[in-house]
């Protein structure tokens, strides 16, 4: 049995500080199928990083490891480290419940709480974390709905059920709900895949605004979208991170042949 654990060397530590979120040697599996194989990735602060790759390449599973959501799935296993500002989320003294508040998530399909009004959906996380002051709640709800460009469309109907909105509006509502608890990182799992082009465009515009304050990591299988919204892009294939760099470089001068094939649309 190996007793010496690999200690991060000093150089690594200093280097890590430039990054908001660092994933190291992530191996993740469910039902004994390994979905993510030894992926190490560093995410710059206040930038959008896109994860692209064909279906089943492990990009969603990897994303779910970053806020300890993966371990909630059945028969899920994970090893490796995820450092948020240098603190390992998977170390024993870290509480996943506290950390999920710092790392918000938006899912593939809009999932507002169906029994709650638009207002209550946005306020849900705040109330959950003990905020009761009506004035402050009102203020944050308004601010978050403005941030996702939804305020003007719903300001007169805040008491209406969240489900009464269109699909694109629901997804923006879910983003507002995630923003309300003021996370530091926002994970987006194909946030526009179930939306029409106009709704998609609105979400992309919004991301350009959001990255001024948040570190965003987006999983997408839409390469044009990755090109439009991201500063950095990682290409994953069969559970491995094949190539990771500036978006422009990945799409224009990929170093690996397989990356080139994928971004040129030769397989998908």
């Amino acid at each position, binding site marked *: 049995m190996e007793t010496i654990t690999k200690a991060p060397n000093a150089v690594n530590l200093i280097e890590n500080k430039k990054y908001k979120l660092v994933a190291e040697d992530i191996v993740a599996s469910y039902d004994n199928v390994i979905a993510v194989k030894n992926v190490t990735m560093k995410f710059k602060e206040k930038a959008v990083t896109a994860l692209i790759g064909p279906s089943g390449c492990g990009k969603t599973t990897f994303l779910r490891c970053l806020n300890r959501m993966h371990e*909630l799935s059945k028969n899920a296993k994970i090893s490796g480290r995820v450092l948020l500002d240098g603190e390992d989320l998977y170390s024993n003294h870290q509480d996943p419940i506290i950390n*999920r508040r710092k790392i918000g998530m938006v899912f593939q399909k809009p999932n507002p*709480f*169906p*029994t709650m009004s638009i207002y209550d959906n946005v306020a849900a996380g705040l109330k*959950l*974390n003990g905020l009761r002051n009506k004035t402050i709640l009102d203020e944050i709800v308004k601010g978050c709905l403005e941030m996702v460009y939804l305020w003007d469309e719903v300001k007169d109907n805040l008491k209406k059920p969240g489900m*009464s909105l269109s699909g694109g509006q629901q997804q923006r509502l879910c983003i507002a709900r995630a923003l309300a608890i003021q996370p530091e990182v926002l994970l987006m799992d194909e946030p526009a895949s179930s939306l029409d082009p106009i709704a998609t465009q609105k979400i992309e515009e919004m991301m350009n605004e959001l990255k001024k304050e948040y570190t965003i990591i987006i999983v997408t299988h839409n390469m044009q979208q990755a090109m439009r919204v991201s500063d950095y892009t990682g290409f994953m294939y069969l559970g491995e991170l094949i190539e990771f760099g500036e978006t422009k470089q990945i799409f224009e001068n990929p170093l690996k042949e397989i990356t080139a094939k994928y971004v040129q649309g030769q397989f998908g």
Partner: protein
Amino acid sequence: MRRQLGPKKNSAVADKVFKIGATVAATFVLVIIVLVVFELATGSVPIWQKEGASFITGSTWNSVEGRESYGAAPYILGTFVTAGLAMLIGVPISIGIAMFLSELAPKFVRTPLSFVIELLAAVPSVIYGLWGLFVFREYLRDWIEMPLYNAFGNNVWIFSGNPFGLDIFTASMVLAIMIIPTISAISREIMLAVPNSQKEAAYMLGATKWEVFKLAVIPYSKSGLIGASILGLGRAVGETMAVTMLIGNATGPSAFPHSLFQPGQTMSSIIANEFSEASTTGLHLPALVGIGLILFVVAVGINIIAHLLVARVLKAHEGAVLA
């Protein structure tokens, strides 16, 4: 290659037979309901003629020929009290079981425990009655009824009486146990049907397990949980054998549910107790059939209320799924 499909033979006839067959099968249910109502109504005509409304409001119960007088009020009330008490105890336990089984239990506990709970639903009610009579009753009497009686018996009317073990309290507790499998099995299914995306939305906001229930699972499945509980109520109201064995079988005014620790009677238990000795010439049998009619109306009423409740919950939250 193109293949020619020949004209179908006899398809029109077969379709007709199928339609008629299915319609007959569906009509069958309706016919049975109508027949039951008809029998209950015609069979109880003499008692309604003799007693009128006081059959529902009255409490005397005298089957001696020449002095016959019947009132069903104590049994109607007894039914509501026992079923209500059973719900009060049974529903929270059932929801707790469902929560444990759907989210909290480790896999190696989940499957066997779900199986055991479904087995409980298959135990015949006479077995529950026997167990209640010879085992459970003594524990209830010595550990719950006596202490409560000693502490509050003189001051609090519901704990007064004679804590002997054959009473409304024991019957209600066994009823509670009997409705648990029904409610918890259905509630578990309903909670399992809550989509993962809902639970993940709650986890994402930093919810604990309990908060996931509060925020996502329970609101989403509320109407279904109400439906499950009402199904349990239906069973509690109609349950006969175990109640008859445990409730002490009082008749007349003394059957009014005064206190938890006194013998009582429900609509179903008085029918079970007396149908074999009711004379066909007097009013005794029509009286029992009349109680049967009331029980039928109550049971149907509960179902209607259940549906209205579920419909209202659904309407209040457009888009919420599950009935």
